[in-house]
């Protein structure tokens, strides 16, 4: 379980004159659903394409499944990738797609695929293009899972789906995780839904890694402090504040602190959710929290009253 399913160091990718990804150093441990979150153009798809071997880095290193180069036979066998908008040959029937995928891969669990499609009520003789959006997504996912991967990579898997189809899609993914221990890396904009799905968070912003770590650890080391706006400036200097929202009288500070840290008198501390945490960091592209196994640049620590027990870096 201590294997890293994706590991990068100084990874960069340039398209023409644009850097899609820069100085990306991170490690995604196995056994998690890791969510790759960031605004459009942050480099999510680029990072995933580099990891599955669909693109070659301009600089830096990327390995998968415990040190293997992307695109190597072992990596290809062990990783299944479902790209954005679930690519299928629209004119082939579900049965033909199944046949094709089976013949294009060394490992393919045909029985799983057939059983799963039957459970989903997807007729084998129907053309992929005539299936509903949810069924197309499930078909692509079933074909990916039938390869019995160790790592499932999903690029914006649910963006186009309605709520029921989303739920069913994620249920299939997570059940595969419960059954076979497949690790999952997925990119998504839909922050609210990640809360129940993801237990590892990677926040990308402008081509750089801003946050990477286990969700539980991140939530346990961040709080929201609510108190008089007049004092906010004072505390902002003493506490390590990620993001501040101020009204005339009241201010909310999202700070790096645990439940055990003292709360200033007259202030209230609240636990923070994944969505609130992600939004705060996305609004402050300068802030970073990298408690995960990856250690990025060794920046001087801003000393604060933090006892997180984990190595952490704070830049403001």
């Amino acid at each position, binding site marked *: 379980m201590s294997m890293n399913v994706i590991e990068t160091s100084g990874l960069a990718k340039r398209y023409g004159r644009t850097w899609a990804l820069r100085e990306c150093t991170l490690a995604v441990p196995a*056994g*998690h*659903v890791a969510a790759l979150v960031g605004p459009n153009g942050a480099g999510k798809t680029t990072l995933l394409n580099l990891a599955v071997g669909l693109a070659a880095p301009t600089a830096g290193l990327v390995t998968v499944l415990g040190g293997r180069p992307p695109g190597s036979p072992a990596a290809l066998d062990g990783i299944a990738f479902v790209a954005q908008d679930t690519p299928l040959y629209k004119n082939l029937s579900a049965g033909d797609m199944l046949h094709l995928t089976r013949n294009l891969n060394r490992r393919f669990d045909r029985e799983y695929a057939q059983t799963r499609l039957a459970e989903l009520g997807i007729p084998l003789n129907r053309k992929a293009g005539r299936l509903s959006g949810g069924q197309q997504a499930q078909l692509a996912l079933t074909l990916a899972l039938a390869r019995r991967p160790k790592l499932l990579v999903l690029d914006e898997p649910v963006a186009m789906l309605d709520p029921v189809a989303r*739920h*069913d899609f*994620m*249920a299939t993914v*997570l*059940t595969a*995780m*419960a*059954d076979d221990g497949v690790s999952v890396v997925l990119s998504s904009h839909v922050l*609210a839904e990640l*809360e*129940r*799905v*993801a*237990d590892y968070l990677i926040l990308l912003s402008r081509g750089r890694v801003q946050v990477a770590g286990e969700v*539980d650890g991140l*939530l346990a080391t961040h709080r929201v402090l609510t108190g008089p706006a007049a004092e906010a400036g004072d505390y902002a200097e003493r506490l390590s504040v990620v993001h501040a929202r101020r009204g005339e009288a009241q201010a909310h500070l999202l700070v790096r602190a645990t439940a055990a840290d*003292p*709360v200033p*008198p*007259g202030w209230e501390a609240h*636990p923070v*959710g994944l969505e609130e945490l992600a939004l705060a960091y996305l609004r402050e592209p300068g802030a970073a929290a990298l408690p995960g196994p990856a250690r990025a640049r060794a920046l001087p620590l801003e000393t604060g009253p933090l006892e997180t027990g984990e190595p952490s870096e704070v830049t403001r």
Partner: protein
Amino acid sequence: MSPLYSDQHLRVSDAERQAVTDRLAEHFAAGRLDPAEFDDRVGRAMSAKIRADLSGLFAGLPETGAPAAPELARGGGGTPGDAPRGTGSPIEFRLDAASGVPTYLQLVHQVEHALRLGYLKPGDQLPKVRDVVASLAINPNTVLKAYKELETKGLTAGRPGQGTFIQATLSQVALPELTGLRKTLLGWLTTADGAGLDQDGIVALFTSALRDFYERRSGSRTRGGAASGETEGVA
């Protein structure tokens, strides 16, 4: 004898009374009952002895969740949760995304709640991790974390290859006492309503008083309790 009335003389179980009051509370929370109506109907539910006493409690209200009659009829004197679902567990989890409570804690709370209300008894099996994952689309690690927490609390025990089972009960307050407490609380609610507090205000006041109460009792308070003076009367 018409089948419609055949079960009306059956005695009502505590769990059934609880289910009925829970659903009344739902209607109350949704603003479909005013405090006086709510008070009255809960009072009738708590003092109901047979099924017939429960009829009419939902008069003029839309149905929530499961319809009243079939749900009660299926209870048959036992707990309402024993309807066969094939999952091997008497309970089913649900999630409230808007509650702000971490997912694993919601699962923990639901097991504790089910224990208090008698839906779960020692020896009962919790839903299998895979089934919870498949029905709620949540991370398996989250379910495992919840089950580990329950085990740490001594409420459950894992049996390798079989699943997780209840092994302890939570202290349950006897029904007469519960009825009394509910009555006191309803009285307080009427006072609060009369003082002009709306529902959210009442919830906020109660929550803050509850927190103060437990924080004071555990003595772990580190800062002065500013606005706690006027909330004494609650507990």
